[in-house]
């Protein structure tokens, strides 16, 4: 019987404690945007129990969500993004194809023990695209447009600039030095 009521009790107790703490901290810091709106605070304190009832998982604060921006009314649906031929499933398949292509390109030169400039150039190109797409996905996940529109744009352009710079660097390294595969091999066996 205790096991039936325990989760609910625990959740409500924990939530009540966190509400009290948050209300206290909001009162202590009048610059907080929430402190400016006392109606907001009272509503939240009143309805937080009901809000929590819809959230089955416990709260995680490892990566706190950013500031909240709600456009329109509460009943407006989430906007559907404009369809784009290079986004969505094509983009997804492209990411996977690049990743799958990297597996033989990474393993083959070391397994075969030969130096082939063509393979090395292909490896560099795919690594660059793979990294670029990976960083793009990271930015999309952790710097959402709805919360940080300016920062999102800045991050994307910084990434584009960095990728161009890194592409130039890889080209220089491939043409002036021994190539990525051979360089790694020499350093590894040094």
């Amino acid at each position, binding site marked *: 019987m205790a096991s039936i009521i325990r989760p609910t009790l625990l959740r409500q107790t924990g939530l009540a404690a966190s509400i009290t703490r948050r209300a206290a901290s909001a009162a202590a810091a009048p610059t907080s945007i929430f402190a400016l709106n006392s109606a907001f605070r009272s509503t939240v304190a009143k309805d937080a129990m009901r809000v929590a009832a819809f959230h089955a998982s416990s709260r995680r604060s490892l990566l706190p969500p950013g500031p909240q921006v709600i456009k329109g009314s509460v009943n407006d649906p989430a906007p559907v993004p404009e369809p784009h031929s290079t986004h969505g499933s094509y983009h997804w398949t492209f990411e996977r194809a690049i990743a*799958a292509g990297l597996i033989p390109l990474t393993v083959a030169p070391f397994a075969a023990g030969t130096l082939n400039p063509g393979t090395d150039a292909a490896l560099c190109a795919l690594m660059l695209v793979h990294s670029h797409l990976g960083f793009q996905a990271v930015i999309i996940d952790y710097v959402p447009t709805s919360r940080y529109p300016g920062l999102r744009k800045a991050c994307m352009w910084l990434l584009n600039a960095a990728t161009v710079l890194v592409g130039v660097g890889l080209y220089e390294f491939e043409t002036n030095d021994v190539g990525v595969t051979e360089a790694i091999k020499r350093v590894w066996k*040094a």
Partner: protein
Amino acid sequence: MNSSRVGVRALRQAASKPNTFFSHNIPRLALANLQTRGAATTPTLKPEDAQAILAEQRKRRPVSPHLSAYDYGQTWFGSSIWTRITGSIFSGSLYLFSAAYVIAPLTGWHLESASLAEAAAAAPYALKSGVKFLLAWPFAFHLFNGTRHLVWDFAVGFNRTIIKQGSWVIWTSSLVTALGLAFLV
């Protein structure tokens, strides 16, 4: 015994063998099992209060994916966030090195493969092997876990036991590969 089964059992017994005690007590047993609730508790909300509740709800949504968004009993050990973390280490290193290689002539840094190999050769064996292991493990893990996620993308291998076994295979094989690459190659 689960309390919700009491009434059911009483009903079954009453149905199988007529018994005056149970047939008299069925209404009471059934009532004891009912949940009681107060009157409707939904107050009328002003639009700004509704906005406040929505904002509060949205603040509780987890930012995904991150390390504590996965279940330890299921996909935590083989989660894609590990592939992302290990991949970011290497992509970050690649970006830093290549950018540094471009500006090296201006700053006078020596980042040619010959000087890098010399520096590596000069390092003591323990340091060299340690660094090699710390590079080899994320590499092997990214390769193996990434391959598994490519398999998952074909909607194959989502059985819970296979997920758990796969995590074991990935961790042991990546550790063995990393030890081999660090100390044998």
